[in-house]
């Protein structure tokens, strides 16, 4: 296996903020008509001036701290100069030297199954440009429209060191970053374009390419896989990889060259004199005090406090909403049973339906776990209740149990069925006595059939075995 080197630049919209980075326009532009969330400042009209959204910088510092970064004493903004239709000032207000946060790291699960430390080079703030809407694909469009609603959205760019070694690790990093951002309540990943990734990728010893502006984590994995294959094929044919910028075409699942190094921009960074230097060191203690319990710490606590297996704890803490859901359920129902049913069953059923945890009520999960605890329903029955609720074919656990007849069969009914089954299965009984343990399964099956599946199979097995052994 050739060594693959991947570094990521992730543009995170701090979309839990109410107003844009440098003006008072609302950030709630999704589902609004194009260019309706704009003002002279975010449109860059002549004479307008930016004013820093202090809350945005506080959010940025919060993320920096959660990524274990060093927060600079003071920070300031630069102009990044380039011409593009989505950039109404002809420059983007960004950061360069003295970014908000530097030298951090977070842990991810590496391909070798071990936890790996991924270093964060820096996290800096900038304004989002507008959005281009091409009529068709980027290389064939006849015309392009611009929507400036997004222009000026507060962005945090997180830059990793080239520590990732596969598309899967890149995905694991992004999942972890998203999880942390949502824990911090600075980010809503469900909004379109809320996280965009530039990926730098190379084979060891070769030049790197940059795939720009990939949206969606699956897109990142696909783009990286394609790019690795492409670079390997070039190498096999003894063709050098050209250092260039490439675009990921989501429809065709390929990357295409958009800019070679020769055409690389000189962004002519220089300090933005319209904004003051921010002395942020003094802000840090207060922001630190607001940091919530983060995924890794919560995971350890779940193991210690609820006695969970580590993989269950990890799964439950991967999303703040899921972790909160679990803790609500675990307050009134068995924590261990709840962990199994939420992490192993409910999560799978949600994923299958592309639903989030908000689609399921805590009370329902409490009911289900409690019924399982009291052996009032079978495991199969519990799964059926979950599915019925998710498919919106019922809204009350007790009614679902009744209408689908999921209540466990009464003991005497089971006893009766066992006696009948034994009477009808002389041959199987003989086989069992001759040493074939498996022969009992036939009898258990018969009992299950007689109770129409309402009996607990394990319990039936125990009863049948006891009865045969006794007689």
């Amino acid at each position, binding site marked *: 296996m050739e060594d693959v080197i991947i570094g990521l630049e992730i543009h995170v919209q701090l979309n839990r903020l109410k107003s844009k980075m440098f003006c008072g326009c609302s950030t709630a532009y999704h589902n609004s008509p194009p260019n309706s969330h704009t003002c002279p400042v975010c449109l860059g009209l*002549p*004479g307008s001036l930016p*004013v820093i959204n202090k809350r945005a910088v506080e959010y940025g510092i919060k993320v920096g701290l959660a990524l274990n970064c060093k927060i600079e004493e003071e920070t300031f903004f630069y102009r990044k100069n380039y*011409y593009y239709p989505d950039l*109404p000032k*002809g420059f983007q207000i960004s950061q360069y030297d003295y970014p908000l946060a530097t030298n951090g790291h977070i842990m991810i699960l590496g391909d070798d199954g071990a936890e790996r430390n991924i270093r964060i080079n820096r996290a800096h703030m900038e304004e989002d440009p507008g959005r281009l809407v091409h009529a068709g694909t980027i290389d064939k469009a006849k015309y392009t429209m611009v929507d400036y609603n997004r222009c000026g959205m507060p962005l945090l760019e997180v830059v990793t060191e080239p520590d990732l070694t596969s598309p899967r690790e890149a995905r694991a990093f992004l999942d972890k970053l998203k999880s942390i951002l949502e824990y911090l309540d600075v980010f809503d990943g469900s909004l379109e374009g809320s996280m965009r990734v530039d990926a730098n990728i190379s084979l060891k010893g070769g030049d790197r390419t940059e795939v720009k502006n990939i949206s969606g984590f699956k897109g990142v994995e696909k783009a990286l896989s394609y790019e690795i294959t492409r670079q390997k094929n070039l190498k096999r044919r003894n063709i050098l990889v050209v250092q260039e910028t490439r675009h990921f075409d989501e429809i065709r699942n390929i990357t295409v060259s958009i800019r070679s190094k020769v055409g690389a921009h000189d962004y*002519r960074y220089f300090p933005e004199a*319209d904004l003051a230097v921010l002395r942020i060191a003094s802000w840090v203690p207060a922001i630190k005090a607001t940091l919530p319990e983060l995924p890794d710490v919560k995971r350890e606590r779940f193991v210690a406090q609820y006695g969970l297996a580590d993989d269950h704890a990890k799964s439950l803490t991967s999303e703040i909403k899921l972790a909160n859901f679990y803790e609500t359920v675990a307050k009134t129902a068995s924590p261990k049973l709840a962990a199994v049913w939420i992490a192993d069953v409910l999560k799978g059923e949600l994923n299958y339906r592309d639903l989030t945890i908000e689609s399921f009520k805590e009370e329902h999960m409490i009911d289900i776990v409690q019924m399982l605890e009291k052996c009032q329903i079978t495991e199969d029955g519990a799964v059926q209740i979950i599915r019925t609720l998710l498919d919106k074919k019922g809204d009350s656990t007790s009614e679902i149990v009744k209408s689908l007849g999921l209540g466990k069969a009464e003991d005497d009914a089971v006893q009766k069925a066992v006696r009948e089954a034994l009477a009808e299965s002389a041959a199987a009984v003989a086989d069992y006595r001759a040493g074939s343990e498996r022969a009992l399964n036939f009898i258990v099956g018969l009992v299950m059939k007689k109770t129409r599946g309402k009996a607990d199979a394990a319990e039936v097995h125990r009863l049948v075995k006891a009865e045969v052994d006794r007689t």
Partner: protein
Amino acid sequence: MLAELRSRLLAESCEEHLLRLFDRIEKSKLNGFTTLARESALEEARQFDKNPGKGLLAGVPIAIKECISTKGIETNCSSRILRGYIPPYDAHVIERLKAEGAIVMGKTNMDEFAMGSSTETSSFGPTRNPWDKDCVPGGSSGGSAAVVAGGEAPCALGSDTGGSVRCPASFCGIVGLKPTYGLVSRYGLVAYANSLEQIGPLTHTVEDTALLMEVISGHDSRDSTSAEGERHSYLPGLKDGVAGLKIGIPKEYFGEGVNKDVEKAVWDSIHTMESLGATWQEVSLPHTRYALAAYYVIAMSEASSNLARFDGLRYGLRVGEDKDWHTTFSAIRAQGFGPEVKRRIILGTYALSAGYYGRYYLKALKVRTLIKDDFLRAFKDVDILASPTMPIPAFRIGERINDPLSLYMADVFTVPINLAGVPAISVPCGFSGRLPIGLQLMGPHFGEATVLRAAEAFEAVTPFHEAKPEVI
């Protein structure tokens, strides 16, 4: 003057007064106004005649430099590229003027994007000096200065990036103030070099400038460089005189390159103030000789970025048929900008390029700090500094326009003030032949009150501000 005008407006009719001004402007050969807001101005005048209101500038007509954003009135910086751009918002200073009842008459000519000191680089053609129609009015706020000096507007606003208020005030024989950086909000001032420029008044008298400063200065949360703190008042104490005032004479601002008439007029002025009880002493601003180089590197670098937004996509000039992005915006910029603007964008782009940034821009910033320190040091010993505003009187139209270096050199006494961020005023202090000469008085940061008081004391005992050109 504005005080008298206000009582006259109350006694007579503001509408008629404005109609007389517009009539005069229509017949004028100065080319000072670019756009007239005739209808809205007359409507506001009629409102005033019905109900005068109590604003500090109620009913007072004012001319506004082309680069200050006015809602509903074209704001084009005298450039082709912005022709037809009508802003949807008022600059902070315009809001303040309107709140005090002033009436915006229209927009005045300027060097394209304020790049120049003669108003010759305007796409509207040059403005003429009311004192000699063959001479420039100075720049870049040449239109504002000419219409005030020529009696077409009682007062005006200009902007000063490297002398653009003081130079035309000096050449046209009126008063012009460049305030401390941060004292007047730049919100709505179309940026040329944003770390250097301020909006400032152009008026007939020091008192009028003080009055306009009362109105336009003060904190604005929309400009992050706007100074915090309470609003200043400049009228009380204005006439307290200069007894005991210590005036510094920067030796680097005299001698070689300074016109003899100018030098004499300025020394006479210093002696006049001495006779009023001030004292003077020579001081040194040793880094003055690096100021022009540092100024032009910083101004051009910032300009190359500030003017990047003019791509014709959202407003302004559109040429020919739209092609791909690069071809289209390049064609628009090629046709939209004049040669001086292009020169400065290209030089500024070069100065900020990878590999040159440290050699030019960063070095210029260091020089800027040294120049600021020069001023801080000088103001430990003296209250104000006095010098010529311009080393020469107004020159002839066309005389220097093809020699940009000699034009740049004329800014030698005004640009250090912008680099340091301190305030400076130009007041009329004599004549060279028919052409006015300006005295520049500089103060420490936020020392406007002292500067205005000194200028007022000088004006009170001299006749220069009363001289009127025989307007063509």
